């Protein structure tokens, strides 16, 4: 198995780069990063719309989130792959299709986390900001978001990590990311599917495990800061001495 990996390592990690298009794990990471770069800001916007008192904002955003949450990712990919060119009249590259789909998909899930963070804040926070004469927008930006995002940071980050795995759906529309590369290797070897896909699993695992450990570091920092009393609103049950005694 090791020889399969070493022989195909370059293809698995970088695709045909530099002699051809970049692929493999590198493309997977590019897809995930690009997706998140747009999904995170979009999710803040979506969450704002969801909690908005204006129905013109809250209803469409709620519908979007419910649709995305109620449909498998692969369906979304098919839709955008086959439907979008019909609608706009010209072809869109599989890469773009996948990025856009990931953005919508992740933004919907992230917005639910952000919304939960917003709604878990005590009502007194917005009341006191508004009673000082701060506008709705200013209250959101300076009082609500900093607290909601900070409280939800661990959940937001783990949702971000799952984006790495979600890029594997690109396989179905032939985006040459990690899973597609592994499938190509499998097709050329023909008789070693178990080994090839075990390697694939291990690569995903290594990446996600590393990122998860980083998130745990962030999480510990947050609960340490809360324990020293710098910031606490939602009391975490992690490191709770009463609970653990």
């Amino acid at each position: 198995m090791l020889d399969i990996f070493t022989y195909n390592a370059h293809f698995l990690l970088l695709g045909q780069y530099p002699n051809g298009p970049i692929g493999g794990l590198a493309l997977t990471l590019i897809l995930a990063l690009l997706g998140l770069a747009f999904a995170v800001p979009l999710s803040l916007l979506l969450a704002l719309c969801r909690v908005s008192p204006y129905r013109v904002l809250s209803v469409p955003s709620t519908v979007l989130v419910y649709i995305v949450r109620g449909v498998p990712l692969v369906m979304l990919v098919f839709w955008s792959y086959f439907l979008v060119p019909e609608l706009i009249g010209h072809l869109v590259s599989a890469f773009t299709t996948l990025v856009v789909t990931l953005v919508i998909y992740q933004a919907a899930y992230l917005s639910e986390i952000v919304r939960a963070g917003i709604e878990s804040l005590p009502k007194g926070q917005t009341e006191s900001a508004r009673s000082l004469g701060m506008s709705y927008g200013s209250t959101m930006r300076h009082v609500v978001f900093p607290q909601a995002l900070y409280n939800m940071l661990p959940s937001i980050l783990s949702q971000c990590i799952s984006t790495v795995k979600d890029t594997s759906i690109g396989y179905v529309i032939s985006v040459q990311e990690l899973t597609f590369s592994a499938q190509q290797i499998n097709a050329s070897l023909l008789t070693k599917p178990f080994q090839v896909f075990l390697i694939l699993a291990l690569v995903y695992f290594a990446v996600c495990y590393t990122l998860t450990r980083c998130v745990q570091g962030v999480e510990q920092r947050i609960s340490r800061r809360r324990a020293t009393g710098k910031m606490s609103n939602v009391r975490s049950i992690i490191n709770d001495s009463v609970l653990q005694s």
Partner: protein
Amino acid sequence: MIQFSKVSKWYGEYQALVDVSAEVGRGEVVVVCGPSGSGKSTLIRTVNRLEAIQAGEITVDGSSVHQATLNLNRFRSRVGFVFQQFNLFPHLSALDNICLAPMKAAGKSRRDAKQQALALLDRVGLASKANSYPQQLSGGQQQRVAIARALAMEPPVMLFDEPTSALDPEMVGEVLSVMKSLARDGMTMMCVTHEMGFAREVSDSVWFMDRGAILEVADPQTFFRSPEHPRAQAFLSDLRH
């Protein structure tokens, strides 16, 4: 300064405020008291439109509070509000809690806001706590920061909604003494409170409320010596026991 005329409010079927008419004069200190559930907090929250009303009118310094055309943010910045639960922003230091609204709502520079905040912290006796976060402060200190925060917008009127009810007994005094010094400086104040000592010592007028209505308005001497309404008598005798 604050006028209530025939103010009524319903929560569904339940009438929380019943035809309330009363007035707080400029520079006056009014204490609103009454049993819990009598509508005191609801009444004070209608003054800066944290609660809507369904009938009547409230005017503050000439502007009709519940009119749709009111510039709500500007209006609110002219009415200080202090909450029972302090509601400090936990992610900001005491200093930044005070600076936030002057910078973001009144457009002050950070330098001016900071200078003013330090002066206000000094006024409430917390100059040394400027960089502390709310969680590092005691309840009494948090409430004093909250008062300083409300004062930072330089409001001509201050509303206090049970400012000492969430405090341990030993911390009530420090908050009351800040409120007393405000009253001495001529601030127009409306306070919902159970601190009858404060009412007796500082207030110009006591309003007794029960079941959403103001049943008695009297100066504190009269109110505490010989309340007229039987429910006010019962309330005061309950307090003494």
